């Protein structure tokens, strides 16, 4: 029996270390599921469903819609654009008309009066003598508004009735649509007397 220390066994050093397996603790699984649940709740409330229109203080498209400015009322800005493209050349962008050529809109009894008369004029034009604010005009106006969509025509007529100090009721696209259906495919321009006969 020898008392000398044995040299370490070479076999132990050669063995490759093994990765052991151990069960995931139950609390960790519970925690993960709680985190998952919280994540989904957060997602529901804050993601806006990844809508690119929804930014941070708003949490969903529905909430964003609640904060939209009111769109009610006539669209005078649109009416102004249409007016200056279509009507302004003759009637003037300031609505003052051109003496002897095109009657003014400011304070005009035709612009402020019966909408049924006013809507018909751009739809089929107006020819022959017409008296506006005590002045006689005798030229033909083509059917400038026949090609405009109902909402554009309503916007421009409303713009005429509510600009430059004019204060008359707005004209809705529905009114324009109704009159357009009555006018039908009329190509003849109106005369002032024909319009006055219409209620």
């Amino acid at each position, binding site marked *: 029996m020898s008392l000398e220390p044995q040299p370490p066994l070479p076999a132990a050093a050669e063995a490759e270390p093994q990765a052991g397996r151990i069960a995931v603790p139950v609390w960790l699984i519970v925690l993960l599921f709680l985190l998952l649940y919280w994540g989904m709740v957060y997602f529901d409330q804050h993601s806006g469903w990844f809508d690119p229109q929804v930014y941070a*203080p708003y949490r969903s498209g529905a909430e964003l819609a609640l*904060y*939209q*400015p009111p769109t009610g009322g006539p669209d005078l800005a649109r009416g102004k654009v249409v007016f200056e493209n279509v009507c302004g050349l003759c009637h003037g962008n300031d609505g003052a008309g051109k003496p002897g050529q095109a009657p003014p809109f400011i304070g005009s009894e035709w612009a402020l009066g019966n909408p049924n008369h006013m809507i018909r004029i751009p739809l089929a034009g107006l020819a022959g003598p017409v008296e506006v604010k005590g002045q006689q005009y005798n030229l033909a106006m083509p059917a400038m508004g026949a090609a405009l969509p109902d909402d554009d025509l309503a916007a421009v007529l409303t713009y005429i009735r509510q600009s430059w100090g004019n204060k008359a009721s707005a004209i809705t696209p529905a009114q324009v649509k109704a009159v357009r259906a009555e006018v039908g495919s009329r190509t003849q321009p109106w005369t002032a007397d024909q319009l006055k006969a219409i209620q």
Partner: protein
Amino acid sequence: MNYGPLVFLAAFFALATSWCGFVLTPQLQIGRLPQAHTVGGAASTYPVARPGLAQQGMEVYRANGCAACHSQQVGQTGTVLEIALTEAGTNQPATIAALLTLAEGSTDHAPALSLLAPVPSAPSNSTNATILAGLPRAFLRSSTREAANAAIKTLDATSAKAQLWIVPVGPDLARGWGERRSVAEDYLFDRTVMPGSQRVGPDLANLGARLPDANWHLRHLYAPRLEVKGSVMPPYRFLFEKRKIKDRQSPEALALPGDLAPGDGYEIVPTQAAQALVAYLTDLHADAPLFNAPMTRPATAEATTSTNAPAAPGTASTNAAPTHAAAP
């Protein structure tokens, strides 16, 4: 055991998913963003391309590293619905009574003005005029859109004219740095978007709206502390030229006081780069009401006393309530 392929796949999957989420999806969603239409009132296209000089000024802004100290992004913490009167109408006692009823009557409204909070005992005709003076003003805060619409109807019925104001709120907005939060459209025509990350100086997203004076900007670039007391901005004098006056002073020469004046017979004139930079700075606007950042601008053109200085604590304007209006 060889886990190499598994580790590679796991890392690839993790990086690929985040790349899809943070790069690809936003690119698909807003990569080809068109111009937006503004909402409410006069509809127009937003944004419009910068004028040429301002476009050059953006390069000057970039070359001088302005974005290192100035951000161009405004935050918002919430939105408040306010009901304002624009016209008092003819039946003022009824209007005030309706306002008081609305303010007390339900939990949907809170008074936005202190004079509505205590109940004035039977207001006589003379006080009516003072209560309804200074219109348009916000009188009530509503918690929901339906309540606001109903309140406006009630007030309109008393011959007054009421309006809904949609007011974004937040610390940035209370400082006067903007009127609403920044959205992607604001940067649509910026090549090299420079939103900035540090705010050594004030946010510049809406600078052109709050400081439209080009001469102010030129003097401020030449000598910042001349215009803003205690400013830490370095002077950008290399953007200016000291010139001998030939026949008479050039019109764009800076008017400088006292010791900054260049001396007799000389003048300080901005170079092309300074002119371009100022054109860019005065062109910075982020105040159009958009669908994704709605607001209504109060009908008065009252210029809020917006400054470059950070908001002093306690100067709470109506914008200062950083509360998120409760969503219904």
